[in-house]
């Protein structure tokens, strides 16, 4: 998977593993009946109308109307290619808005917006116009600029960052991409390269050869990729440098160690739990049998393998410089200034939105694991119990739909902790009778007393769908419509949407 040329990634090196799973998630999202979302009207969380397809509808229209591809090239072919890539960028952002990738959550938005305002105010000559800030609900630790003065910040980054200054560095880095026109320039460069005589000649020479055509083709394409990656790495380094200047002007402290911390961003499921997996179920009087968590399969997944050919992406193809390299390069610029922890309310809301989104994307093991990690922090918010219920209800429904495997989203053991692996095994191996029993028992949990009415109504909806004698589109449609009619503002309408006939 290659990053589209118009996306200028955040501070984080995007590794191949992330792409691999992104590839899984995307088709799943498209291809399966999505079992998703529950959200209570916990004060402060967003409404259905604050999901991007509605909240940013006007902006989306405006983008579609005003993002007109400029005429830059005399050569028709180059201009055509340029238009195509331009259009790809437009479709990318427009589709993302339509598919509810973004959300407007007032507190998180204001928090990020304030950082942006502080930077802009301190750099009036460099940044003349405030960007459109979009909160991407993805859990991956990243942010991106796509040109057009748009700045997208993943909630995974907000969750990962420990201080306001860390977030500010990423934001300043992305603003720098916009200031330096990196996305727009990238589109131009790509259009020019793909229509260049040299590039065409290289490709055509492949057909002239009798042998090793694929190798020759790959070399030609890799040469192109290398050139682009190298270019991107220059862009990233430039963005780093400018970001530090922007922060200095804004009196926001900078510490090069942030780069090192970002190096660990892709090991989120390597975190371990404080207690054995089964103990987290005791609170709900759910009994977990030991063999559910133990992998007895003879399968290759249980073996110790280490295929060197596929171990890592070639350094020359990486789009970002190594974090360590960036740390060293910027070490002397660290100012040792004060740092400000991100307010707990921002952290809490971010976590909840991420968990909800994982559930909506049918990534149930990861979703449950996030809840267990939250419980390890001593969080007793009943919302997490509510999500606990939703996960088992969703898993039971997925099992009935012959889709449990995809809902679990099995990850290879080398990318996850032992606890995650056990939890994954459990969700995969527990007999369906027990799964049904879990779902039914959680339906009766005492935590429901503390839940708002839309969450309770969602329970009714989910149980109607999951426990229907025979699955019927009509039953699902009616139940979904009823929920939406009664709670039109609830964020849980997103879940109902999946079952409402279009």
């Amino acid at each position, binding site marked *: 998977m290659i990053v589209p040329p118009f996306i200028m990634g955040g501070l984080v090196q995007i590794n191949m593993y992330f792409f691999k799973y992104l590839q899984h998630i995307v088709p799943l999202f498209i291809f399966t009946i999505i079992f998703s979302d529950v959200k209570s009207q916990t004060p402060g969380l967003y409404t259905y109308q604050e999901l991007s397809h509605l909240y940013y509808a006007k902006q989306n229209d405006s983008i579609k109307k005003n993002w007109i591809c400029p005429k830059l090239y005399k050569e028709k072919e180059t201009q055509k290619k340029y238009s195509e890539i331009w259009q790809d960028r437009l479709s990318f952002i427009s589709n993302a808005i339509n598919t509810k990738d973004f959300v407007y959550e007032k507190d998180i938005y204001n928090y990020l917006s304030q950082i942006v305002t502080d930077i802009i105010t301190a750099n009036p000559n460099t940044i003349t116009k405030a960007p459109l800030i979009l909160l991407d609900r993805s859990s991956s630790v990243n942010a991106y600029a796509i040109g057009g003065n748009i700045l997208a910040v993943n909630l995974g980054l907000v969750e990962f960052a420990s201080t306001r200054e860390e977030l500010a560095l990423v934001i300043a880095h992305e603003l720098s991409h916009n200031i330096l026109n990196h996305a727009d320039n990238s589109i131009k460069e790509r259009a020019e390269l793909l229509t260049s005589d040299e590039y065409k000649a290289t490709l055509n020479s492949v057909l002239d050869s009798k042998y090793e*055509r694929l190798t020759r083709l790959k070399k030609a394409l890799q040469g192109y990729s290398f050139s682009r990656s190298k270019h991107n790495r220059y862009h990233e380094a430039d963005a780093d440098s400018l970001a530090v200047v922007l922060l200095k002007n804004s009196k926001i402290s900078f510490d090069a160690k942030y780069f090192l911390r970002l190096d660990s961003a892709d090991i989120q499921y390597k975190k371990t739990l404080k207690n054995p997996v089964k103990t987290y179920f005791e609170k709900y009087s759910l009994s977990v049998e030991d063999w559910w968590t133990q992998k007895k399969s003879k399968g*290759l997944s249980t*073996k110790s393998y280490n295929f060197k*050919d596929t171990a890592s992406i070639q350094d020359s193809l990486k789009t970002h410089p190594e974090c360590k390299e960036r740390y060293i390069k910027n070490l002397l610029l660290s100012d040792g200034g004060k740092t400000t922890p991100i307010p707990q309310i921002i952290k809490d809301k971010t976590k909840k939105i991420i968990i909800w989104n994982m559930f909506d994307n049918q990534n149930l093991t990861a979703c449950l694991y996030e809840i267990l990690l939250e419980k390890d922090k001593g969080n007793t918010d009943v919302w997490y119990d509510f999500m606990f219920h939703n996960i088992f209800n969703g898993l039971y429904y997925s099992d009935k739909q012959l889709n449990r495997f995809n809902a679990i989203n099995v990850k290879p053991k080398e990318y996850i902790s032992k606890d995650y692996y056990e939890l994954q095994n459990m969700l995969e191996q527990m007999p*369906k009778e027990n799964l049904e029993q879990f779902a039914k028992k959680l339906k009766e949990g005492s935590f429901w007393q503390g839940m708002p009415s839309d969450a309770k109504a969602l329970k009714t909806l989910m149980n109607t769908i999951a426990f229907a004698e025979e699955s019927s589109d009509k039953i699902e449609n009616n139940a979904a419509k009823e929920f939406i009619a009664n709670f039109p503002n609830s964020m849980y309408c997103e879940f109902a949407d999946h079952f409402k006939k279009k």
Partner: protein
Amino acid sequence: MKKNLLLAVCSFLILFNSNAQSKVFKEVSDEISSQVNAIMQDGALVGYLMFTQLEKVSEDSFSYKISIMDENLNDIGVVNFREEKISLQSVAFEQDVLCLAYLKSNVIGQKFKKLKGYKSAAPTANNSIVTQFLNLEGKILKTNQIAVDIKTSTFKNNEGFFVGTGSLDHGIQLRNINQKGFALFYGDKDIQQLVTYTSTGEVLWKKNIDVAKYYSLFTTPNDIYMVVKKKDKMDEGGYEAWSYATADGKQYPNYEMKDKEGRSLKILSFDNDLTTGNLYAAGNIINPNKGNSYYTAKDVANGPYDGVFTISFNGHNKGDIKEVFTYWSGGDLKPEISTRGRLMENKHFAKYYHCSRDFNGNTYFAGTSFTKRPKIGAIVASVVFLPLLAPPILLAGLGYNKCYGKDAVILKQTPKGVLSIDNFVASSHPHVVVGRAPFEGFVNNKTFYHVTNSNTKSNYLIIDDTKNITLYNINKRQVTRTIPHKDGKIRTNVYPAKEGHILVSEYNQKEKYTRLSIEAL
């Protein structure tokens, strides 16, 4: 990708396709061919392997890529290598080593511009079996080669090339030997040979095998079995079990598959016992008089079989081989099954296709039941039109019976030989046919296989008929799930997967995508 195996191989090309000249990509991708094989160990699926021929790298060699996936379809590694023209035949896994068996040839699979090219190459064809041993670090530990003699021919393909064809008389069979290595069997124009290897690819021993019509290779930790079918007066009989010591290839006395009265046996399943790991055979006892008439529903109703059997191969001495024969005519069975094998409860006839064993040593025989009724109208018409001669002859030609394919039936045979009708499992029924219609495809519309889950000690029978896939829990004697093949625009099929699971493939005809899911039973 994960669930779209074939797309994965071309992802690299597809990625760039929209950005460059499609002709280049089309021509290069046309040269790429892939196949997916299951990786098996001790009869269980442990992973998947995609073998891809990438490109021609010289006059006579190609580059290949092996992509290995675990049992959850997650990629775990890739191995690239170059070889002459090879085609992957079989894969097995043992002691963290993959053994791949290929057929290598400078004629078979090769394209010749002119017939003359083929004709000059064919007489000196260089054909061989290549065994390749790969560890889980992607290192090729060893490659062995056995020269084979294959009769080749040619055909002209759509592109106008003459393509060499040919196959072994007995195709390559490869199995792992638990804790030892691998066993490979093949037969060419001259010999049939059994070869064993250590897990690092060293040849343990080779043995030439006697002539038979068909061969099937099975292994246990200590023994290697060749189940062979020889010419016999009974078409479906003639089976023998030949066994060899894994350690040195020492041959044990052959075991002729017959009952005590010399009746031939029809093997339905030959498999490892779930608790002992020893091999067992199960199937039907063939009636010596009517046993060669089994083609039509009418034949089957006449009783070509006398009962069922299970033979457990616990060793090589006579006493170690436990034979359990149960005859329809056995006194205890009279209330349930007639002497012709008719199921008395509902007056159905049955033909059996599949056997499996549970964790308690019981054997289950699964088959299709059917009924036979006289065609009253045809009989009356024949009588009425008897003076006209022609119509009765015509009607007689069509037969005076009609058959209705019915539910699946399961018989249970205990280790002591007590046989009972365990259950009838509802399944779709084919259209009524005349009694003389072929049984397969007309009366029987089902295929059977089984899945076991050693964690829960559960056995499942999968009944796949033309309309539905039925998952039946043998131990609980109940259907756990019925999956329609077609539900709206979704076409569903199931395949064997890792232990205790099935691979569900759902093709959405409207949206044009396939979703794969590995579901526990």
